[in-house]
C-alpha cells in the first residue's frame, strides 16, 4: 500500500502545483489536415532557431476554429474562412498563410495518363447521379479529344466521409458553376450529398486515394499536396473548366493566375473565396489556407510568440523550399501585406 500512497500524494502535488508551473511559451497549432504537412515543414525549422515550443496537430478545420475560439489552441488552421454567423460569436482573425489547390482525379483504365476535361455542371451531374455512365453525352461533349475512348461503365463518385476543407472548396466550385447544385446541396465542409447508388465515402485524402485506386471507373477530389501520391497510384487528373470557359490544369502558373485575379478584390479581413476566379488561365479550385487566431491571446508572452511565428511564416516561410514540397504557392505580395497587418492586431 505504501508505494500506492506515495504515488497518490505525488499526483495530488502535481495537480496543485501545475497551474502556476506552466512556464515557457508553448504554442498549439491545430486544425486543417491540408495545412498540416506545411506546418510540419515550418515548425521544426522555426523552433530550432527560436526558443519556443510549437505542437502541431491535424484535427480538422472545424476543430481548429473551435479550439482557437475557445483558447485551447493558439493557432487554428482552416481551409475555409469563418462565415458571418460564425464570426458573430466572437471576432477572430482569419490570416491566409499560403495558397493551395485541389485536383479532380479519376481511375479509368486506359485514360489515366491523359487529362480529361470536366466542368462544374458535369461534376455536379456526376455527384448528384444525373450523369450515370462515363460515356454520357454531356461528358463527351466537352471531351472532343478522348470522348470516343470513354467506356460505357457506371461512374463511382467518391466523396469525403469526414468533414473536410476539400469538400468545402469542391462544393464551392460546384455551387459557383452549377446553379442546380447551389440551390441543392450547396457548399460546406459536409454537405447533404444526393443519394447516388454507387457512391462511396472515404476517410481523409489518403482514404480518397486508396478508394479511387481500388475502384475502377471512380472519380474523386483530392488536395494538390497529394498530387505526387495520386500520380504514383496511377490515377489521372483532370483539366477543369474555369469562369472564362477554358479547361485548365492545376499547374503552378494557372494557380498563380487565379490568385492574382482575385488579389485586388481581397478585403482587409481577407475572407474571400478564390473559387472560380476570372481569367483565361485561372485554375478554378484554389483557396487561401487560413490561420484562425484570437486577437486577444492569454498573455503578452504568448501573443508575441504567435506574432513572431506567423510573421516568419509570412516571410521566410513563403520560400519555395517549403511550399514546393506540398505543391502550395506563396501569397502574392499584396496579400502577404494584408496578412501581416492582421498579425499586427494580435494582442493580449
Amino acid at each position, binding site marked *: 500500500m505504501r508505494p500506492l500512497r506515495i504515488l497518490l500524494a505525488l499526483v495530488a502535488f502535481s495537480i496543485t502545483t501545475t497551474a502556476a508551473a506552466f512556464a515557457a511559451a508553448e504554442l498549439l497549432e491545430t486544425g486543417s489536415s491540408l495545412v498540416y504537412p506545411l506546418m510540419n515543414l515550418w515548425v521544426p525549422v522555426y523552433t530550432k532557431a527560436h526558443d519556443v515550443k510549437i505542437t502541431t496537430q491535424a484535427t480538422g478545420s472545424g*476543430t481548429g*476554429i473551435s479550439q482557437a475560439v475557445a483558447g485551447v489552441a493558439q493557432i487554428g488552421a482552416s481551409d475555409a474562412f469563418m462565415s458571418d454567423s460564425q464570426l458573430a460569436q466572437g471576432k477572430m482573425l482569419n490570416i491566409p498563410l499560403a495558397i493551395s489547390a485541389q485536383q479532380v482525379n479519376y481511375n479509368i483504365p486506359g485514360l489515366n495518363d491523359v487529362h480529361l476535361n470536366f466542368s462544374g455542371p458535369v461534376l455536379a451531374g456526376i455527384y448528384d447521379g444525373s450523369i450515370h455512365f462515363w460515356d454520357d453525352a454531356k461528358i463527351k461533349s466537352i471531351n472532343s479529344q478522348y470522348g470516343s475512348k470513354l467506356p460505357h461503365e457506371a461512374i463511382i463518385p467518391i466523396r469525403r466521409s*469526414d468533414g473536410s476543407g476539400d469538400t468545402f472548396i469542391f462544393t464551392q466550385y460546384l455551387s459557383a458553376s452549377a446553379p442546380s447544385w447551389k440551390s441543392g446541396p450547396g457548399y460546406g465542409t*459536409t454537405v447533404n450529398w444526393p443519394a447516388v447508388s*454507387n457512391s462511396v465515402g472515404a476517410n481523409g485524402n489518403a482514404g480518397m486515394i486508396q478508394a479511387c485506386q*481500388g*475502384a475502377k471507373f471512380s472519380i474523386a477530389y483530392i488536395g494538390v499536396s497529394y498530387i505526387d501520391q495520386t500520380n504514383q497510384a496511377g490515377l489521372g487528373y483532370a483539366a477543369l473548366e474555369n469562369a472564362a470557359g477554358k479547361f485548365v490544369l492545376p499547374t503552378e502558373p494557372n494557380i498563380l493566375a487565379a490568385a492574382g485575379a482575385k488579389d485586388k478584390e481581397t478585403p482587409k479581413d481577407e475572407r474571400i473565396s478564390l473559387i472560380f476566379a476570372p481569367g483565361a488561365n485561372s485554375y478554378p479550385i484554389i483557396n487561401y489556407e487560413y490561420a484562425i487566431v484570437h486577437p486577444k491571446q492569454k498573455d503578452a508572452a504568448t501573443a508575441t510568440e504567435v506574432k513572431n511565428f506567423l510573421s516568419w511564416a509570412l516571410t521566410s516561410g513563403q520560400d519555395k523550399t517549403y511550399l514546393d514540397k506540398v505543391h502550395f504557392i506563396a501569397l502574392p505580395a499584396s496579400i502577404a501585406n494584408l496578412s501581416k497587418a492582421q498579425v499586427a492586431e494580435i494582442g493580449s
Partner: protein
Amino acid sequence: MAVAALSGAEQRRSRIAPLDVALRYGTTVMAFVTATIVFLVAIFLIIYAFPAIAFNGFGIFTHLEWNLGNQYGSGVEHRGGFIGAPGASFGAVVFVVGTVVSSALAMAIATPLAILVAVAMHYRVPRRLKTPVNTLVELMAGVPSVVYGLWGVGVLVPWISNSVGPFLAAHFSALSFIGSGAGSGNGLLASSFILAVMVFPIMAATMRDVISTFPQIVFEGAIGLGATPWQSVTTMVLPAIRTQMFAAAMLALGRALGETMAVLMVCGSALNQVPNSIFAPINTIAAVIVSQLDSALTDPTGMAERSLAELALILFAITLSVNLVARLIMRGSDRVKRTA
C-alpha cells in the same frame, strides 16, 4: 460453482474487524464511483442533446438524410424552441440500421466461434502450447483499432472486392442480398468481419479463462459415465458457465456497438441509404460521430453538434435495451430449465 453475496449468517460468522468495515466501506464507495461515472455520461448526453431532441423531434427516427443545413447563408430555422441552420434536418435511420445490423452480424459470427475456440484452447491445445496460444489470442484484443482499420482497407476490402464479390456473384446471383457484386468492397461485410475479429478475442479469452476454472472433476465425471469429451463439454461444461459466457458476450457486444475507428475506415460511409446487400455501404453511429464532429463544430447554431450528441444518446438507449432484453431472455431460460 457460483457464489452469491455473503449471506447475513456468513457475515455474522466472520469476526468483524476494523479492516472488514474499511473494506466494505471502500468497495461500496468504488461501486458508487462506477455507477456515478455511467450516470454522468448519460446525464451529459441528455443535457447536451436536449436542444437537438427538441429541434429534431420524431424526425430523427424518420428522416433518411443528415443535413446540416446552409451554414453560410443568413438566417436560422426555428423548431421546437431552438435554432438550427436553415434547411437543417437530421435523421438517424441510416446510422441506427448500420450499427444494429453490423453488430448483430459480427456477434452472430464471433460468438459461436469464440465458444468453440475457448473450448479448443483449454481441452485440445497441448499443454506446452497453451501459454503461447493464450497470449496470442489476448494479443488480438491489443491490436489498435486504427491498425485493424488499416489492415481492413489494405487487405480485407480489396479481397472482398476482387475475390469474395465475384465468387458470390458467380454462384449465388439469384440471392441479391449476397450475390449482386462487390463494388468497392467497403460496406456491411467488411465492417461486420472486422467487428467480429475485434470482439472475438474478448469472448474467447474470457471464456477460456472461465472454462479453465471449471472443476476438472465434473468434466471427467461425465467421461466416466461414457460420454466423449465433446459430449462432456457440450452437456456439462458449457451449460454450467452460461452466465459467464453471457457476461463476456455483453461486453463484446458493447465493444461492437461502440467501435469507432476501424469501422469508419471500411464501412463506405453510406449517406441516405440503408443496406440492401452485404456489399452495400453502411454507416454506424460511432463512425458518423467521429467523421462528422469536425463539420458539426463549424455550425454556428451548434445544432449539428447537439444532434451528434443525440445520436450518442440513441446508441446509449440501444445498448441499454439490448442488455435488458438479453438479461430477460437469460433469466427466462433459467427459469424454464429449473422447472423442467
